[in-house]
C-alpha cells in the first residue's frame, strides 16, 4: 500500500514534538475527519525556517506527510517553502495511494497556517 519512504517516515518520523515558544503555529484538519496536524516553526531574520516540529493525529500517510514536509522545508525561506505543493510532497514520499492524496494537503495547509500565524505575531510585535 505505502512506499518504503512513507513507511520509513511513519516508523521514524522526523521533527516530532513542539517548539515551546514558536514564531508560528499552524493547525490543519480536525479529529472528526480523522486527521489533524499541528505545526510549529521558528524563523530566522532572513525568514528562513530554522526549526520545525509537528504533532499529527492521523493515518500512516498523514504522519509521513507531516514528517517529510518538515524535512523539505527546514532551511528554506518561507516564500520558497510555500511554493511546495501537494504533488511534490507526495512525490518526495515516492507516491501516495490515490485515496490518500488528501493527506498531502494537510501538510500544506498546516504550513500556510503556521506562516500566517508567524506574520500575524510579527505584525503584532512590529506594532509594539
Amino acid at each position: 500500500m505505502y512506499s518504503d519512504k512513507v513507511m520509513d517516515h511513519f516508523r521514524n518520523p522526523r521533527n516530532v514534538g513542539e517548539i515551546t515558544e514558536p514564531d508560528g503555529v499552524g493547525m490543519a484538519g480536525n479529529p472528526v475527519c480523522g486527521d489533524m496536524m499541528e505545526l510549529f516553526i521558528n524563523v530566522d531574520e532572513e525568514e528562513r525556517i530554522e526549526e520545525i516540529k509537528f504533532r499529527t493525529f492521523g493515518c500512516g500517510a498523514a504522519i509521513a506527510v507531516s514528517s517529510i514536509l518538515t524535512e523539505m522545508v527546514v532551511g528554506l525561506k518561507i516564500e520558497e517553502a510555500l511554493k511546495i505543493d501537494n504533488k511534490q510532497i507526495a512525490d518526495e514520499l515516492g507516491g501516495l495511494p490515490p485515496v490518500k492524496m488528501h493527506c498531502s494537503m494537510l501538510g500544506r495547509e498546516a504550513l500556510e497556517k503556521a506562516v500566517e500565524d508567524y506574520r500575524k505575531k510579527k505584525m503584532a510585535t512590529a506594532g509594539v
Partner: protein
Amino acid sequence: MRRVYLDHSATTPVRPEVLEAMLPYLKENFGNASSIHSFGQDARRAVEEAREKTAQAIGADPKEIVFTSGGTESDNLAIRGVALAKEKKGRHIITSAVEHHAVLDTCEQLEKQGFTVTRVGVDADGIVDPAEVESALRDDTILITIMHANNEVGSIQPIAEISRLAREREITFHVDAVQSLGKIPVKVDELGIDLVSLSGHKIYGPKGTGALYIRKGTKFKPLFHGGGQERKLRPGTENVPGIVAFGRAVELAVHELPEEARRLEVLRDRLMDGLLQRISELKVNGSRIKRLPHNVNVSVIYVEGESLILCLDMEGIAVSSGSACTSGSLEPSHVLRAMGIAHEVAHGSLRMTLGRDNTTEDVDYVLEKVPAIVERLRSMSPLYGHREGETVVVQ
C-alpha cells in the same frame, strides 16, 4: 518475530483438515460434476456430500443449499432473488443500519430500481430493537434482511424475535450469518429464517466459497443464467474443490463450536480486560454480553486506527480498524456511527478477532506491545494533552 494474527473476522487460513479434503479435487479427482464419466461422477458425489454436511450443520435439507462464490454473492443473490421474485406483492424491504456493505449496497441498488428500504437503527451496543422492526413493517413489506452477528463489533441480533414478526405476516426473512457461523449456533428452524448467507473463508475454508440456504417454497429468482447447475439457481461449473472444502469447514466449525467458543471467550475477555487495565481512555465498542466469542473492539482515544494497525503490524500483530482511513473514505465505519459513537472516537477503533491458532501467550504478547504503541502515537497526537490542563476533550 512473533506473528499474532488477530483479524479472523477479515479472513482465516485454510485449516489443514480442509486443505486435505480439497486437494484431491484439485489434483486427481478433478472432474466436472456435470460429466457422465467416472471423473464427473466422483465430483458429483463429493459435491452432494458437501451439500449434506452444510445442510446438516444448519439444520436444513440438502435441497435447500445453493453453493456460491462467497458471502457477498450469497447476500446479493438472496436479496435480489427475493425482491425480484416478490416485487408484484410489494416493494418494501427492511434492513438495519449496521449490515455489511454486501447487504446495504444491494438494498441501495434496489432503491434505485424503485424499491423502498427502511434501515432500522441500533442501540449504543449495536443491537437492533425488534419493536423498531415491527413499527417499520408495512403492508407491502416483502423482505427483512438483518445480520445474525456484526462483523465489526460482534453484536448478536435478536433474530428469533424478529423472525416471529416476519412469520406472522409471511414476510421473507434473510439473515447474513457470515460472521456467526461456527461462533454461535446457526439453526434455520430455531431462528425461524428463510434465507441464510454463509461464507467459507471466515471459517477456515477457502476464499471464493460460500452458500445460500433457501427455505423450500421461498419465491426466488437467480442472479446468473447459464448451464443448469445448482438447480438453475446458481449456474456455472461447480467449484468442486471449493465446495468440498466449504462442506468440511462448516462441518468442523459447527462440530467444534461449543468447546472452541468457550475457549475464545476466555481469550477475548483476557484481551479486553487486559487492554482496559493497561490503557487509559479506552472505550469498549459493542455489547459485552451479546457478543461473538472472538471479538474485541475498542476505541483508543486521541489516536487514529490506521496508524495503530501499522504500528502493531511492525510488532507482528495483525488487527483491523473501523477508521475511515482504512477504507480511504472520510467517514469512519457506518456501524460505529450507527451506534452513536463520535467520529473522532470511531477513527481510533481497533478490532481484534481471535481464532483457532491464538493462545494465551498471543494475548499476553499483544497486551505487552499495545500500551507502548498507544503511548507513542498519543505522544505524537495534537489531541492528547501535552501541557498540563490542556487535554482536548474528544468524547
